[in-house]
């Protein structure tokens, strides 16, 4: 589904990704871990299409096509979803409006009719129930005055509505209490499917207690320093990131 080869990315004068390669197949859940500044969030932003990052070398192919040629909105409609580390508050834009606009943008792109208002509400309420969200959140401004946990649940709600082929969740676990973490994990697990891939970007092992990854990669200095299965995350928790960097440099 996603093939990244030798990706080099700069922002301003600094090179953040220095030849990163990664292959993600449908049905897989990958966790990308690493210390602060290792390039985890940069990777997520580049896949989503953030214009501040400049790709200087390498390729990113999504479902066989050159992803880097596409605008962020085209990537979204093609089935990429980025769950933001810091979801943006947008007062004056109603949550339901955004959900419906996002859903219809994708449907239109795939030649489908706009979703009917009743069908939309039914779908949204169902997904909200899974996430333990009050339906009144639909009528509030996007993330406006939401707590940290509410914002992250709202990201997962959007993901659940949009049913992406590839979901990248950037530090979705940061700032969550245990109840919110469980609810978010439940939302993610409900989306695991043979035709869908999920990339979890996280600093801590904690999230992986609730969402079991097929692969764990450790980023260090802009490259994948080590890959393994879920036991790698536990090893990391025990030995710390310094261990990976030393091993990579050795």
């Amino acid at each position: 589904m996603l093939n990244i080869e030798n990706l080099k990315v700069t922002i301003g004068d600094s090179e953040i990704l220095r030849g990163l390669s990664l292959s993600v197949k449908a049905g897989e859940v990958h966790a990308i871990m690493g210390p602060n500044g290792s390039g985890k969030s940069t990777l997520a932003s580049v896949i989503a299409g953030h214009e501040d990052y400049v790709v200087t070398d390498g390729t990113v192919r999504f479902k066989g096509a050159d992803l880097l040629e596409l605008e962020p909105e085209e990537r979204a409609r093609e089935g990429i979803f980025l769950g933001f580390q810091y979801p943006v508050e947008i007062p004056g834009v109603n949550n339901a409006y955004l959900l419906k606009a996002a859903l219809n943008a994708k449907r239109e792109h795939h030649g489908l009719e706009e979703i009917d208002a009743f069908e939309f509400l039914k779908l949204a309420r169902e997904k909200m129930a899974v996430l333990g969200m009050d339906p009144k959140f639909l009528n509030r401004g996007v993330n406006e005055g939401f707590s940290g946990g509410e914002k992250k649940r709202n990201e997962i709600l959007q993901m659940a509505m949009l049913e992406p082929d590839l979901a990248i969740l950037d530090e979705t676990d940061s700032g969550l209490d245990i109840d919110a973490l469980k609810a978010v994990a439940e939302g993610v697990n409900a989306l695991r499917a043979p035709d869908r891939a999920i990339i979890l970007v996280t600093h801590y092992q904690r999230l992986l207690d609730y969402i079991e990854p097929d692969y764990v990669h450790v980023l260090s200095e802009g490259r994948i320093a080590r890959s393994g299965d879920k036991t790698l995350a536990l090893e990391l928790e025990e030995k710390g990131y310094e261990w990976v960097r030393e091993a990579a440099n050795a």
Partner: protein
Amino acid sequence: MSGAVSKIELAASFPTLRDEDWKYTDLSRPIAIAQQWLDSGSNEQPPDADLIDSIKAAADAAWIVIANGELLEASSTGLQEAGIEVSLLSSDEPAIDVPLANLNTQFRTGGIRIRVIEDRLDQRPIGLLVIDSAAGAPVMSQARVDIELDERAAARFIEYHVSSGDDEHYSNSLIRLNLAADASVEYLRFQDRALHHSQTARLNVRLERGSRLTHGGIDLGGRLSRNDLKIDIAGPDAVATFNGLYVAGTGQHIDNHTRVDHRVGPAVSDQEYRGILSGRSRAVWNGKAIVHRGADGTDAQQANHNLLLSERSEIDAKPELEIYADEVKCAHGTTVGQLDERALFYLRCRGLDESRAKRVLTRAFAATIVERAPIAELHELIGERVEQRLRELGDAS
């Protein structure tokens, strides 16, 4: 026609750029219109019946139609409304000694007095339709309304400004609004004039003990538009909340000056104005709050936020707080900026294309003020007009 007035006397009725309160707003165009009107113009313009009908159809209100400064009885549906008394204003009403109010006093030919006797908040609003037209020659008009609310009386008002006609027009309106103790008013001013017409509009409010004003002012039209909102807090426990929205495109100049005199406390004044400027446009916001000696317990809040969609647009924003009392809570904040890049990226990541994401964010910026405006049944109409205007500006830039 007041042919006896010389051009020198006329010009003296206008403030100049040398006046501190007028340094950003040049009235030379209205002065020229006034002079041409004195020479050759006439207020006997046929009122734009279609425009009147369309507004009356869009909003259910007890309409009092003021066409080029004169009461248009035949079109007015609000002259026999329950709980209010409408009469013609006598010519010896107390003067308001500021230049444009003097101009109004000098040249007005009509004038209306409205007295609200009861609490009629749950009834249809009273609509002041200030409609002007200029065909065949430039026209100046002076709308004039005095509103008094008895103790505990309450009402909703719409002050709706529109204009038509190919020639130039200058409207100078003067409205006084006095609230007796525990009276309450919800007041919406909506200015949607033709883009080649100019206006200056003053609303002077006096709030007695326990009275309450909720005001919303929305400006979409006009080549030059200046609004003066002056609120005198004369009794304790009065509350004045006023919000404004201005949308300007190339060639438009919109100036909002507000002034609140907190003469006694405790009392609250809370204002937020927002502007969207596109093309070569200019706006001014000046919010002055004076907390007089002894007005302890005053809470005065001011905010002004501007969205500049073009590098050629300009805003002059100035909060002014003068505090002579001891125990007060006062704050102000002003921002000028472009659309939030983070919000734009967020919306694009959800599949909205860039131009749509920009439109959504621009409308959201305006919507917060429209939603807060009084007279909820007009929100849809105003929202649509704001939308239409933003679309025109988007197409032009």
